[in-house]
């Protein structure tokens, strides 16, 4: 009765610099587990963002490139186009992907680039110290929205999965979460599905993952999980927004 559980090979032994309770670590582990299960470590190239995960290359045991802020999808495009036999994924936060890098992610998705983007949405800028992100919630306090995000002033938070699902090019677009085991298990399935689509050279794949940032949310890790579940998941609905099989965008969502 019970199961064994080991650190995946594709994950290095190095302790991460992430804050206690930060679910970046969970996502790193899921990616590494899947890379082991698909046995693709030898031809894998990760593309790290500028943000908390800028040091991701220290935590994996395969080739990595570090992109400039927001440009990971362009870097991944460059790698994948010249070496389509390599397995390429970008790992980006909400400031990186949904703010400065919006142009790159939309065009990479719209071209149907055959790599996978892992999008960590924790509704805040982590590395730079808790500023407002495009995904920061209405009324959410950050170091640059001290009175709470004012949607009259800066608009509503961006829903990346829905945004990308509206593109006509076939793709796999899903939003999952990594804040509790029941979500994490589903998130792993979704990431594996995305990676498989890439291995089959089928389409661009995008996995948005609702994640926590206890330090900059000024909450304990457990309070962060609760707030994420109550507040983030009510706005950022989980589900598959698009699969290469489905023609229209949102029709088969959730």
């Amino acid at each position, binding site marked *: 009765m019970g199961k064994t559980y080991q650190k995946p090979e594709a994950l290095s032994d190095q302790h991460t610099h992430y804050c206690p309770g930060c679910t970046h670590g969970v996502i790193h582990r899921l990616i590494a587990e899947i890379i082991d299960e698909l046995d693709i470590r030898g031809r894998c190239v990760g593309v790290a963002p500028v943000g908390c995960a800028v040091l991701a290359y220290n935590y994996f045991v395969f080739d990595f*490139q570090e992109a400039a802020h927001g440009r990971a999808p362009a870097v*991944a495009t460059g790698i994948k186009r*010249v070496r389509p036999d*390599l397995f390429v994924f970008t790992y980006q936060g909400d400031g990186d992907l949904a703010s400065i890098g919006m142009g790159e992610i939309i065009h990479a998705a719209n071209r149907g680039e055959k790599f996978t983007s892992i999008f960590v949405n924790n509704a805040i800028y982590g590395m730079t110290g808790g500023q407002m992100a495009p995904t920061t919630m209405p009324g959410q306090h950050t170091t640059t929205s001290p009175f709470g995000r004012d949607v009259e002033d800066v608009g509503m938070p961006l829903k990346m999965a829905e945004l990308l699902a509206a593109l006509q090019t076939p793709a796999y677009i899903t939003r999952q979460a990594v804040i509790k085991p029941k979500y994490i298990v589903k998130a792993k399935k979704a990431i594996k599905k995305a990676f498989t689509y890439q291995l089959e050279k089928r389409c661009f794949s995008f996995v948005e993952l609702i994640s926590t940032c206890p330090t900059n949310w000024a909450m304990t890790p457990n309070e962060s999980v609760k707030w994420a579940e109550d507040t983030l998941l009510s706005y950022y609905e989980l589900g598959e927004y698009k699969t290469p099989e489905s023609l229209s965008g949102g029709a088969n969502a959730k």
Partner: protein
Amino acid sequence: MGKKVLMKGNEAIGEAAIRAGCLNYFAYPITPQSEVAEYLSHRMPEVGGVFLQAESEVAVAYMIYGAAGAGARVFTTSSSPGISLMSEGLSYIAGAQLPAVFVNIVRGGPGLGGILPSQGDYFQATKGGGHGDYHLLVMAPESVQEAADMMMRAFPLAEKYRNPVIILGDGLIGQMMEPVEFHDHLRTDPVNNNHWATNGMQFRNSSKPNIVKSLFLDPDELNENNLILKAKYERMKKEDILFEPYNMDGPYQKLIVSYGTMSRVCKTAIDNLKVKGIEVGMIRPQTLFPFPETAVFEAAAKESCKAVISIELSMGQMVEDVQRCVQGLRPVHWYGECGGNVPTPEKVMDVVTSL
């Protein structure tokens, strides 16, 4: 092919890259060099190469970064405003020590400026348009033939230094047609880059990942990385300075320093003056970085030489380097025009004789 063909500069640049063994091109349209992309959009598929038009020059720079980081030969072409957008990328590519070739078919600036020839990007190219301590190896062709040759030399140079190389042409060189021959002996095989490229561990049967990055949070590490870059630039100054002396044998009283399209006009002016018994010499830098410092100093130091003048299609940029090299030995002047007007030989003759 060993024979000459009449070709537009932009297209010759594209073809030369293929002849050099570079089959990967990412670009964005911008006048006056969109013909390179148009040409390669059908030529690259013919040779099984990669052609992609990106969403912006910013994206282009990072597609170049990714492709170069994966160990592939890769290049792009653009023009002034586009190169400005790529400047952050150039800094990253230099910082991460990646070989890549860029071409700037310079147009009038600043801002949207104009679309006619200019040399107003000299500072941007030679003093580093992006942030941090880095340099580009900068070559400046005066003809379609030289642009093709420099393109073919750019790839081995980029690989020798693991540093971006940029060819500084201009609207004239890009747009005009001239006979050109592709010197296939200039083609080289790519160097082995298994020790740094992210080309997949299994393909270099290694268990050690390669990381392409420019982040060095530890000050000693970043200083170390910058010293590595500095050593490259010192080596460039020793091994890869290129310049053409013109009419330097006679007792010239005036020395011109000029490059690219402008230097061709100066050659005609020098020839015309020589017929009139007026000797004028010229140093034509073919590499703008590394700059031919010693050559300019020695040329200025010649007994007969009384004055030096930098003639460029800008408001005076290379003149600062000329002044630096002449070290006050002779008065250094400047003449230039902007906006796309290229001074005539007669104008150059007037300017030089009136010094």
